[in-house]
């Protein structure tokens, strides 16, 4: 007497069964999954991935998602995604240090703030010098004052000489 069970359709049959406990574990590497998705894995490796996917609903769902996305035309990404991502990598020239900086280059080497500070101090020094000149009367007035002192001193000398030799007296 055969112990046949009641008829079931395919889906009912599968749902009534459970896999016997099996130690199928492990994650699939990115390269292995990519190769599996393209059907490029060697048979033994493909069988290993099949077993993991059969046992792991999460990895199975991941494989399904990726397969669907790779098969469909993709909508454009939001512009800001590309803008932000492109900003992650700078220009090559910014990575190269200057070989022999000149005077101007060294002046601005530490940045714009340093250069502005130097310019401000230089301007302040120039203003100080000019204002000092103006307060002191300027260069022309100083020269005239010096000349007056010279004339006064030479007049004093010639009158002394006249006093000494003026009346024919010889000492």
């Amino acid at each position, binding site marked *: 007497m*055969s*112990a*046949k*069970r*009641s*008829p*079931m*359709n*395919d*889906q009912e*049959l*599968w*749902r*009534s*069964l*459970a*896999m*016997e406990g099996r130690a199928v574990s492990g994650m699939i590497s*990115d*390269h292995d*999954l*990519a*190769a599996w*998705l*393209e*059907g*490029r894995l060697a048979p033994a490796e493909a*069988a290993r991935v*099949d*077993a993991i*996917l*059969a046992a792991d*609903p*999460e990895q*199975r*769902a991941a*494989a399904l*998602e*990726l*397969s*669907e*996305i*790779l*098969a469909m035309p*993709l*909508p*454009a*990404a*939001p512009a*800001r*995604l*590309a803008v*932000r*991502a*492109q900003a*992650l*990598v700078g*220009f*090559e020239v910014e*990575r190269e240090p200057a070989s022999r900086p000149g005077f101007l280059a060294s002046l601005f080497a530490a940045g714009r703030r340093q250069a502005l500070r130097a310019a401000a101090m230089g301007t302040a020094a120039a203003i100080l010098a000019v204002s000092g000149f103006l307060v002191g009367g300027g260069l022309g007035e100083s020269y005239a004052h010096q000349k007056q002192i010279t004339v006064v001193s030479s007049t004093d000398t010639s009158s002394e000489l006249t006093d000494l030799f003026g009346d024919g007296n010889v000492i």
Partner: protein
Amino acid sequence: MTELNEIDLRGLTAGNKRAWDQFVAAAAPLINAVVRRALNPYRLGEDDVMDAAQDVFVRLCASDFRLIKGYDPSRAGISTWLAVVARSAAIDHMRRRRQVADSIDDVPEAALAIEDRHVEKLKIPQGLLTDRQTLMLRLLYDEDRDVTEVAELLKIDAQTVRSTHHKALLRLREHFKIDST
């Protein structure tokens, strides 16, 4: 726009800015689609999804482009590899954020599934089905996919799917002595 498989990856990993910009422009639609799909169950806002997508690019250029330097073109195409990497990165980004569900509605349904223990299921002995047959039956019945979708995923033709499916069920019916309807 330059296609992904036309990008000068060697120049990119040497720090060529133009190559990186071209790579980003070519990869952005794929990474955007993969990240959105992966994070869909978590119902994140647009800014959070954009952050996750940006994080993928951060990973790609991190440590002097270590990930891209490790890409092996002999194993898979760049688009497929990039999609796999993007999905892994998106899930990792999500786990790092440690999103705490405020309500049961925020938890993906798959995480809430409870196995029905009232019905005693017959055990399929090891070795009765091949791994490929088991995977195929899971895709068809547990994931509710049709023959065309399974064929696309496994990179085989639809007839092979039907044939493998038929053989697997025949084995099960013979073993458990269950007739079809």
